[in-house]
């Protein structure tokens, strides 16, 4: 497998990533990150989430600006459809995470990417969320991700890129493995 070469440019700074990997393996405490989001109820099923800060490398970090995400339910759920449904936001998170990994691994392996498109589809039986059938889970019954990759490598090498991206993907891990979720409530106002 060829290493990253100067002729390949996917816009990923692999040297910086490898440097960080080396530095953090010597200082594992700096590898402890905290990711955050806040979400405000707007009206009905419409809400607005934002991300501004996170913690990492031993200190508070700021995004360059605040990023916001609106979510709602579609009209078939008698909502106003003012944003993506939250489950679609999950698909976007998975897709973006895999996509970033594909670019980074391609750069490291010296593969020039020309275009990459991922199409995601997740099945869901809404008898679960509607409480019709207790045997049906609320969430997806599975997720299909199809990648179309135009890159300067064999079909097997492109498939290996996507496989390696899944192996190192945070969101892939989050959706494939159980995570403890703690929710607390404070009365305000």
């Amino acid at each position: 497998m060829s290493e990253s070469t100067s002729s390949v440019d996917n816009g990923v700074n692999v040297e910086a990533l490898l440097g960080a990997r080396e530095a953090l393996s010597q200082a594992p405490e700096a590898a402890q990150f905290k990711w955050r989001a806040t979400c405000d109820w707007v009206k009905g099923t419409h809400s607005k989430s934002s991300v501004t800060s996170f913690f990492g490398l031993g200190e508070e970090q700021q995004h360059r600006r605040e990023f916001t995400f609106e979510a709602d339910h579609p009209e078939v759920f008698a909502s106003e459809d003012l944003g993506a449904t939250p489950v679609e936001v999950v698909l976007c998170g998975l897709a973006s995470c895999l996509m970033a990994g594909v670019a980074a691994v391609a750069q490291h392996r010296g593969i020039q990417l020309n275009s990459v498109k991922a199409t995601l589809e997740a099945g869901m039986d809404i008898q679960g969320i509607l409480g019709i059938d207790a045997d049906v889970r609320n969430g997806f019954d599975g997720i299909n991700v199809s990648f179309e990759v135009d890159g300067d490598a064999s079909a097997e090498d492109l498939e290996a890129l996507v496989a390696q991206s899944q192996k190192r993907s945070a969101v892939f891990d989050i959706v494939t493995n159980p995570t403890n979720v703690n929710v607390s409530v404070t009365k305000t106002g």
Partner: protein
Amino acid sequence: MTGSSDDQPARSVDAVVIGAGHAGLAISHCLREQGVDHVVFERGEIANSWRNERWESLTLLTPNWQCRLPGFSYSGDDPDGFMSMSEVIDFIERYAGKIDAPVLTRTEVTSVRRNADQYEIATATGNWRSRAVIVASGACNLPVFPPVASASPALVSTLTPHDYRNPSQLDDGGVLVVGASATGLQLADEIQQSGRAVTIAVGEHVRLPRIYRDRDIQWWMHATGILDESLDEIDDIVRARNIPSPQLVGSRDRQILDLNAMSDLGVRLVGRLMNFNGTVAQFSGSLRNVCALADLKMGRLLDTIDEWAARQPEAESFSPPERFARTRIDDHPCLTLDLDRDGIRTILWATGYRPDYQWLDVPVLDRKGKLRHDGGVVSDSPGMYVLGLPFLRRRKSSFIHGTEDDARFIANHLTGYLARQ
């Protein structure tokens, strides 16, 4: 005299070797060639781990023709066979006899300390002082469990490959084998064939065919030079040292032991075991990807072999290239399994091994409990060496035949160290 070893003055020797398995004996032979005065401490008998900590059906993954140690090689009439445990023990015992190794059996080392330029070694039969120490106590002393093991439901019995001998010691119910390296697949195979329904939890693994183009995979790995790859040819040695053992078995019929063979037998494949919620086991949804990774990686290895074969003068004499079917996965692999309702009564943790360094009172371990070393030369403790670990200096270090190069290097390094001291 009271007879207590604590009252005896410590005996002195230039070097001590800890462990009389194949690695300890190989270095003993090389030290004797260099004229280094040494002893070999063995907690039990020669080849102790092979004797007491392995299951009955285990055979080596390397064919007999490949089995050799410095100054000794296989001389039987079945070069393409694979040694059983009793044959391995016999092989190593005969080697110890041939080289007349200075082994003290039933002499467990209880402590190794560093004192200025010397090492102080406490053993069950007395104290010693030496200028050099070679740790050859093995890579597989203790089973490794994932954190989830502590939440195993009480209704199942759990055991490790160190306790497992054969299927008859198991309850008649189903068995969950956790881990799909050589150990996991070999045990899943024989337990399923004993009539117990086996489920195997599969994380990252290494898939290899036993026979490729009519030759043993070890022949190809040797001929292409892959087994000879050394430390400085590898980008990430930590990763290379942690690669799980390939899905191979050394059986008389040279069977290919992969996940498709498991499925053919009726073994159920599930993803990596992630959690227990009461009696319900939860498995990762990554099964398809870990199998894709292993299939693709095997494909790249076979490409490398084919490219090498095509360059050889005898290229025409090799059987044609082959490719193997992708690993078959159900459309909806099971994600949760109620062990109680499913009748699973045993969990077998085939999740790896680690060395036991409890007796080592020199600060040479990293934060993960691994010995810090550069190709067998232990870091920050001059005169201390380690031998017999996976990819110590070369890929073949994991195998018996890989010990020779490592032992010769260490014997030379150690001799130079003693001369300079």
